[in-house]
């Protein structure tokens, strides 16, 4: 590889800006969708009691629902339920 002056390098660096953070995060959470992330968020939005249980002890609330408290799922759920956490 040759022929890069610094102006050209600068142009090529600028040619790859980061994708919007929300897009990246949504794509990263795809596997969690299979674990029911969206359903849990929707239920927490509609059911205040369930939401309070999640906020009080997220892992215990998931286990009480028969859902394995996968750490990535728990972290994503906390993020989606902000600012309560």
């Amino acid at each position, binding site marked *: 590889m040759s022929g890069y002056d610094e102006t050209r390098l600068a142009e*090529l*660096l600028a*040619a790859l*800006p*980061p994708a919007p*953070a*929300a*897009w990246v995060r949504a794509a990263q959470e795809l*596997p969690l969708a299979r674990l029911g992330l969206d359903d849990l968020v929707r239920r927490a939005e509609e059911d205040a009691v369930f939401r309070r249980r999640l906020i009080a002890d997220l892992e215990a609330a998931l286990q009480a629902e028969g859902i394995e408290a996968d750490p990535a799922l728990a972290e994503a759920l906390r993020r989606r339920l902000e600012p309560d956490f």
Partner: protein
Amino acid sequence: MEGPLPRPAQVRFDSCVSSQTSTDASLVRRARNGEQAAWAELVERFSRYVYAICHQAYRLSQHDAEDVFQEVFARAYQHLDKLRSDDAIRPWLGQLTRRLCIDRLREASRETPMEEIEPPDVDESLARIDEAIAVHEALDDVPQHCREILDRFFCRDESYTTIGNELGIPSGTIASRISRCLKRLRELLEGGKKMPAESV
């Protein structure tokens, strides 16, 4: 067609330009085995590439670009086990993104001939993106402080003041640091002599 996309939202810096310690193939293998962290890293690694194809090469609107972006990674996740070679994830994602971009443009203009659907300079744009990928990959071989300052200034369009505040360095020294880091990157790309790390 809507106007250009807004400047991308800021994301955590260290997750975007950290040195690539896993090969593409190992990331694919780990993600296929259900390792969430590997999938997250895979998305991070290729997100700029997919975004650039949607945004720069095919000039999709923000809404369409987001749909294609998500569809690309949804299909990739679903079909990871069908990849012929784990090393071929980038060209596979590139081809998938291009196909979905064309589908999206075709849906928007069903009566338009195919040759008029694609932007006229799409091949040049794709070649430029591939060249930019090579430069970004070379960033892995420059010192972390160079990687960080070059990414902040050129990719994220941050001001000297912002960079200085974030990195805790005098803003008056940033231009010279950028210049030295660009020189280092250029030497790496040209395969020539390398400057000692402490000199940049």
